[in-house]
């Protein structure tokens, strides 16, 4: 099983994949509920403290959960396909939730186009950094334990190159003084106009 990671002691699917991915998804759901009901914490300092705790945690979960899931799946012997797919469970769930949320305002087509916007695209873009780095890190750890394994392979290297290009277009491709990302945003809006505005 060449593509299985962790090499030894591959766990059953429920422990290998469902448990870590499910726990992460559960944390995300709980944080969503809490940030949507900050009034439970009253007003004033408690409210602001709750926001200061839960909003960053929510953001961290959405952005960085893939690092955790990918790592656990690697250690528990999940395949590359499993690692990539399940590591993205929270980012993908967030994007689906966004589509669902905006579908009460926009048409289905517009809601799907919303998912191609800078925020969802940026979220998926950052995963192009995390997943290869995760892979490289765990390969390095595996090699350190004495196994024969290449640390950097073609797949992660290519993905990292795509990430760098994406970062340029998302953040640095702009006019002096512009808010980072504004040029891509205007391009995205031109696409919207072409598709949805007469």
């Amino acid at each position, binding site marked *: 099983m060449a593509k299985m990671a962790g090499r030894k002691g591959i766990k059953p699917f429920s422990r290998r994949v469902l448990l870590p991915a499910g726990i992460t998804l559960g944390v995300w759901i709980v944080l969503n509920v809490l940030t949507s009901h900050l009034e439970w914490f009253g007003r004033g300092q408690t409210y602001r403290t709750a*926001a*200061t705790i839960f*909003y960053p945690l929510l953001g961290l979960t959405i952005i960085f959960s893939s690092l955790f899931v990918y790592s656990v799946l690697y250690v528990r012997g999940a395949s590359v396909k499993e690692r990539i797919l399940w590591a993205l469970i929270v980012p993908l769930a967030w994007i689906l939730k966004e589509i669902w949320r905006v579908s009460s*305002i926009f048409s289905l087509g*517009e809601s799907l*186009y919303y998912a191609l916007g800078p925020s969802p695209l940026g979220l998926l873009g950052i995963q192009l950094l995390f997943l290869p780095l995760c892979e490289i890190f765990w390969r390095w750890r595996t090699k350190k334990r004495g196994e024969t394994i290449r640390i950097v392979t073609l797949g992660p290297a290519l993905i990292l190159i795509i990430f760098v290009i994406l970062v340029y277009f998302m953040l640095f491709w702009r*006019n002096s*003084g512009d808010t980072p990302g504004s040029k891509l945003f205007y391009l995205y*809006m031109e696409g919207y106009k072409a598709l949805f505005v007469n």
Partner: protein
Amino acid sequence: MGKIKFFDRKVSRRQTLKIIGGTLAAGATDFGLVSRVVGAGKGTNQEKKPNIVFILSDDHRADTMSNMGHPFIKTPNLDRLAKEGVKFTNNFATTPLCSPSRGCFLTGQYAHRHGVKNNFTPWNDKNVTFLELLKKAGYKNAFFGKWHMPGRLPNLLGKAVDRFVTFTASGGQGIYFDCPLIIDGVVTERKGKYLTEDLTDLALDFIRKEKDGPFCVYLAHKAPHQPFVPPHELQELYKDADVSRTLPPEYHPWIHHKEGSGYYGVMGSVGEKYLDYHRVITAMDQQIGRILSELEKLKIADRTIVVYASDNGYFWGEKQLIDKRFPYEEATRIPLIMRYPSKINNPGRTTGELVLSVDMAPTLLALAGLQVPGTMQGMSLAPILTGNKNLPHRSSVHLEYFKDFPYSVPEWDAVRTDRFLYIEYGNQKAAELFDILKDPRTMHNIISQPEGKSVLPELQAMMKNYLRRKANG
């Protein structure tokens, strides 16, 4: 609980005629418009038409001026304007969003009529602006600053203005430093210039050149729109300000991470951005001061109308919202101050009459003694400036918002009376009703409470009437 009456001032037919007569008289005699201006062409001995300096800012909420009791911002020049003119405390943007609102100011029409409903629907060059009508009457006009309406830049030069200075950088939003300007069609680099000051410099040049008048300067600042970049010398201003008195209880430092808020361009610490917002307003106030000083220096202040307004307000965490667009007071209520030393009675007054962004075009035309086209939907505020008591008073106004992808704000229509705000949304979101007198921050929806139920039918009838008119264009 007794039924609340909207129309406290029930009027008979005779009184109505009296009011209309009073209005006409106020408009005509208090400003000496009919006798002096109507039919007065160039070269006659009639009194000169007034000069106009119309200053429009971007996202400046009505309460963020020292003359509104703000605890730490300093706006001495806007305060001076208010002291020497009339301040309107119930002025509303008919659509609280940049592009449509600009169209409303220029045309005197609602967005559903002038067509710029959001950031996509393009400006129609067939729209008639007050600038065009002033120009036809002999005014020398200049447009400086933010156009920011969808579509190509309009063909204003020659048709409506004699000088057209604008920008297309950052999607038409402009940038605070080094913003290239399009001066009469020519792109010009402006290295090292701060946009608010740069536009003011150009406006002052025009005023000096056209001091003999009549002239109209339309000066539309980017300030204080995000990213709220103050000039270098004001970067430390208000650093010790106590923001706890101005930020709402429901504010928290992560407000800009609320779902759907990512597109509002507020990144990093909201706290620092909040202070920058005030710094940028003070920077703009300084530039307004330069204009007031120059008018005095040129000895034309008495016959120059100076108007200050903003396209919409701004949320800083109220109801956990940021930006504008929503139908609540923070976004819809906008500053409006008018000064006209030689004509305004009792300067320093504050009026709470319900007035709208669409009133500006008819007001300026009326003050210039011109006929207000029937296609304009606003009312002239000239009678209010005279302080005439026998005026028709609006019992309600209609506000509207159209879908604007990707900002996840549903379409809405609102009816605002002196006391109530009733909102109907275009999606599944339930209608809302607020008692502004009891609940000025619109925190408690009373639509299903007895006091709400008692006034709802009248508000719904008003809404039906407004929507019928809207459907008819």
